[in-house]
C-alpha cells in the first residue's frame, strides 16, 4: 500500500511549505505531491525611515525597529507574501516602473524557491520521502529550473511518475483561461492536447492518478465567486459559478482513473465521484497558514481510503 499526501496552492506561504515537507513524516505518507501555485502574489514593502521601519499589512500600519523585523518578515512570508525592505526612493521607483516590479518579484520568488528547496532536501533526505511538485498557472516558468536542481523535490509537469510499482501519476499545472492572464494558461483545445500527451505516457489508466491543477468543469470542485467586469465578486461573493476545465472533465470521463487530484479553486474544497474516478480538491487556506490536504491510501485494488486534512 502507498500513502499519498496531496496539498496545493500554498502561494508563497512559508509555513505552509514547511508543513508540506513535514506532512510526510507526520501523516506517515510515502509520497508528497504538491499541486500548482507555489508562488506568492504580492510584495509587501517595509519602508525604512531612519532607525524605524513602517509596513502596512493585515489592515494595519505597523512600526518596528530592526530587532522586530525578523518577526514581521516571518508573519508576512507565512501568509504568502514577500517582505521587501525599501527606502522612499525605491518605493517611488517601484511605483513608476512596472518592469522593476516584475524583476524584483522574480528575484524574490526564485530566492524563496531556492530556500524552500534547501529546506526540503535537508529534511526529505533524512526521511526518504519524495516530493513531487507541478507548478500551476500562477507560477512563472523560471521556477521550474529551481525545482529541477533540488534532489528530493521533483518536477512532474507533463511527466508520468511511478509512485510505486503499481501506480503512476500524470500531471499538468496548466489551466484553461482565467481573467488574470496568468503564466500557464491556454485554450481548452491546447489544454486537451497537453492532457492527452501526459496520459499517453501512463502504462494503463486503472492504476493512474491524475494530478491536474484545474478541476473538471461543473464538478462542484470548481465553484468560484462570480465576478463583475471590474473583477469584484458579485453578491458579496456568494454567487458561485463553475470555472473548471471542460477538457479536464472530458479526459476524466474518458479515461476514468481511480483518483484525480485537483486544486486551483481555493474555496471549492470537496470530494466528487465522476464515474469510477474519485476527484478531490483539498482547497487552500494558505493565508491563514493552514495546510489543507488529502491523505490517500492506494493499494492494488484502487483507492483504499482517504481523508481530507486541515493541518
Amino acid at each position, binding site marked *: 500500500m502507498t500513502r499519498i499526501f496531496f496539498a496545493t496552492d500554498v502561494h508563497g506561504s512559508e509555513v505552509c511549505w514547511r508543513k508540506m515537507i513535514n506532512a510526510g513524516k507526520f501523516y506517515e505518507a510515502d509520497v508528497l505531491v504538491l499541486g500548482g501555485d507555489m508562488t506568492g502574489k*504580492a510584495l509587501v514593502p517595509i519602508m525604512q525611515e531612519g532607525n524605524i521601519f513602517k509596513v502596512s499589512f493585515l489592515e494595519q500600519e505597523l512600526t518596528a525597529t530592526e530587532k522586530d523585523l525578523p518577526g514581521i518578515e516571518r508573519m508576512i512570508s507565512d501568509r504568502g507574501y514577500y517582505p521587501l525592505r525599501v527606502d522612499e526612493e525605491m518605493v517611488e521607483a517601484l511605483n513608476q516602473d512596472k518592469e522593476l516590479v516584475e524583476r524584483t518579484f522574480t528575484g524574490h520568488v526564485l530566492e524563496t524557491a531556492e530556500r524552500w528547496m534547501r529546506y526540503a532536501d535537508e529534511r526529505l533526505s533524512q526521511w526518504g520521502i519524495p516530493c513531487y511538485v507541478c507548478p500551476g498557472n500562477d507560477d512563472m516558468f523560471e521556477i521550474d529550473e529551481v525545482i529541477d536542481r533540488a534532489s528530493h523535490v521533483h518536477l512532474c509537469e507533463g511527466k508520468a511518475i511511478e509512485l510505486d510499482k503499481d501506480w503512476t501519476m500524470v500531471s499538468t499545472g496548466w489551466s484553461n483561461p482565467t481573467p488574470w492572464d*496568468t503564466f500557464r494558461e491556454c485554450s481548452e483545445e491546447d489544454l486537451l492536447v497537453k492532457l492527452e500527451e501526459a496520459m499517453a505516457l501512463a502504462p494503463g489508466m486503472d492504476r493512474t492518478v491524475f494530478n491536474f491543477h484545474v478541476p473538471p468543469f461543473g464538478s462542484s470542485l470548481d465553484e468560484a465567486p462570480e465576478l463583475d467586469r471590474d473583477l469584484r465578486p458579485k453578491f458579496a461573493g456568494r454567487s458561485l459559478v463553475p470555472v473548471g476545465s471542460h477538457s479536464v472533465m472530458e479526459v476524466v470521463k474518458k479515461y476514468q482513473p481511480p483518483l484525480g487530484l485537483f486544486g486551483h479553486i481555493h474555496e*471549492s474544497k470537496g470530494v466528487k465521484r465522476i464515474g469510477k474516478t474519485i476527484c478531490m480538491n483539498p482547497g487552500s487556506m494558505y*493565508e491563514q497558514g493552514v495546510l489543507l490536504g488529502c491523505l490517500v491510501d492506494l493499494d492494488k485494488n484502487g483507492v483504499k481510503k482517504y481523508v481530507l486534512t486541515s493541518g
Partner: protein
Amino acid sequence: MAEVGMFVRKASGLVRAWSVFDAFIYAFFSINLITLGLYIFSFAPFIPEGHLVIAIIISAVFILFEIVVYAMLISAMPRAGGDYVWQSRMLGGGIGFVLAATGWWFILWHWVPLYASMLAYEVVVPLLTIIAGWTGSKGLLGTALWFMDVNGLFLTCLMVIGLAFVYVGLGMKWYARIQKTCFYIAMVGLATVFIVLLASSNSSFMASFNSMTASLFGAEGDVYSSIISQAAQEGYTPVAWGAMPIWASMPLIPMVVFFNMWPNWGATLYGEVRGASDFRRNFSGMALALLVTTVLAVIFLALIAKTIGWDFYHAANWTFWSGSSPLPVFPYPGLLAAFLTQNPLLQVWIIITMSAWFFGWAGTVFLSSTRMIFAAAFDRVLPEWVAQVTPKQRVPFNALLLLAIPSIITSALYCYTPNFATYTLDATVVIAIMYLGTTVAAILLPYRDPQLYGSSPVARYTIFGLPWIVVAGVIFIIFLGYNLYMWIVDPVYGVNHPTSAVYMVILYLVAIGLYVGSKWYRRKQGIDLDMVYKNIPVE
C-alpha cells in the same frame, strides 16, 4: 512621502473587495423584521409589563457583540461550515459535530413549521382574505381560514420545504439574485405600509377596521373596541406606548431574540467567499443589517402605535393567541395597513410586496445547513454520499433530502400531534446553545492557536491588552446565559417543559450516537478522524 502599498503581480484570484451592501442584504433578511419580527412581536402581550421597543434596542446592543465574535472568527478562519468547523478545530471534533448537527441540522427540521406558520399568517391568509374581500367570494375566505387550520398549516409546511428545496437546488447564484430582487420589492412594500400608516389617523383606522371586519367576517358593531375590552376582561392590559420600563422589559429579550439573533446566519457560507478575511466588511455587513432592522422596527412600532393603536395592536395579538378574538385571522400589521385603503389594487399591492420579505428569506431554512452537512462529510464524519451533487444541475440532492424528509415528518407531528408544537419552541434554544459553543471556541482561539490568530487581521484589535474577540465573546456569553436561564426558569417562553427538555436531550443523543458510530466505523476502515484536525508540527 511615497505611498506604501503592496505590489501585486499577475495572479489568479486577485479580486476587488465585495460589496458590503450585498452582504448586508443576506444578514438583513436573516433578521427578518416583517416575517420573523412581527410574528414574535405578537407574543409580547404574554409579558405585559415589558415594552417591545426597549427589548429590541437592548437586545440589539448585545447582539452587536455576537457580530464582533462571528465577524472575527470568519476573518481568522474563513471556512465553509462555519460553526461546525470552528468548534471542531477549537473544542474537538465530537463537540463540534454534536452542537452543529443539532443546531444547524436537526433543529432546522423543527423550524419548518414555524416558517410555515409565518407563510400562512403573513402571506397566504392575508392575500386570500384581501382578494376575498375584493371579489366577495365566500369560497376564498373559507380557503383563507382553512390555512389557519392544521391541514392548511401542513400544506404550507410542504410549500416551505418545496420552496427551500428549489432555492438550494438553484444554488447561491440564483438565490442571491432572487434575494436581491425580493429586497427591493420588500422595501417598496414596507415604504407603502409606512406611508399608509403615516397618512392615516387612529380614528380612520378604527372605522376602516370595523368596516372590513363587518364585510369580510360578518362581525357586528365596534369590533375594534370589543377586542380591547375582550383582552381587558381576560386580565390583559398592555404597557403604555410612552412608558419606558427598562427592567420590566428585560424578560421580553429572550422572546425578541427569536427574530434578531441571526445576523450571522450566513456564517457557514463564508468559506466560499473570496476576501472573507476582511473583518471590517464582515462586521459592517452584519452590523448594518442589525442597525437598519432595529431602526425600522422602532419606526414600524411607532407607526402602529400612532395609527393602529398600541393597546389595540397588543390586544388583538393577545386575543388571537388566546382564541377569543372576533378577528379570525392573525392580526398581521401588513393586513391591518391594507384595511386602511378601500382600493383593492393597493390592498393587493401591499400584501404582495410585503410577502417578498418571506420569499427572500425562505431559503435560509435549509441553505446554511447544507454547508454544515458538507463540512462534516468532508471530515468523513458523515458519509461521502451526503455531500454529492447531481451531475448536471449541481444540486446537493442528498443533503437536501436529509433536511426535507425529516422536516416533512416533524411538520406532520407538529400539525397532527398534540403538544408537539411546544417542542419546536426549542428551536431557538438549541441554536443558542450552538452559538454558545462557537463563542467559547472564539474565546479560546487566541490561546489555543496563537499562530493562526496572530497572523489574522483581527489580532490587532485589543482592549486593555485583551483581544477584542475574547472581550466580545465574554459579553455575548453573558447575554446568551441570561437568555438560556430565562428560557429554562420562566414558563412564559414555553420551553421549560420537562418533556421538551427530554426531547432536546434526545436530539443531542442522536448526534452523539452519530459521531461515536461514525468514529468507530472509520476506525474500522483504518481512518483516524482525529487526524483531520491535527496541526502539522513544523521542524
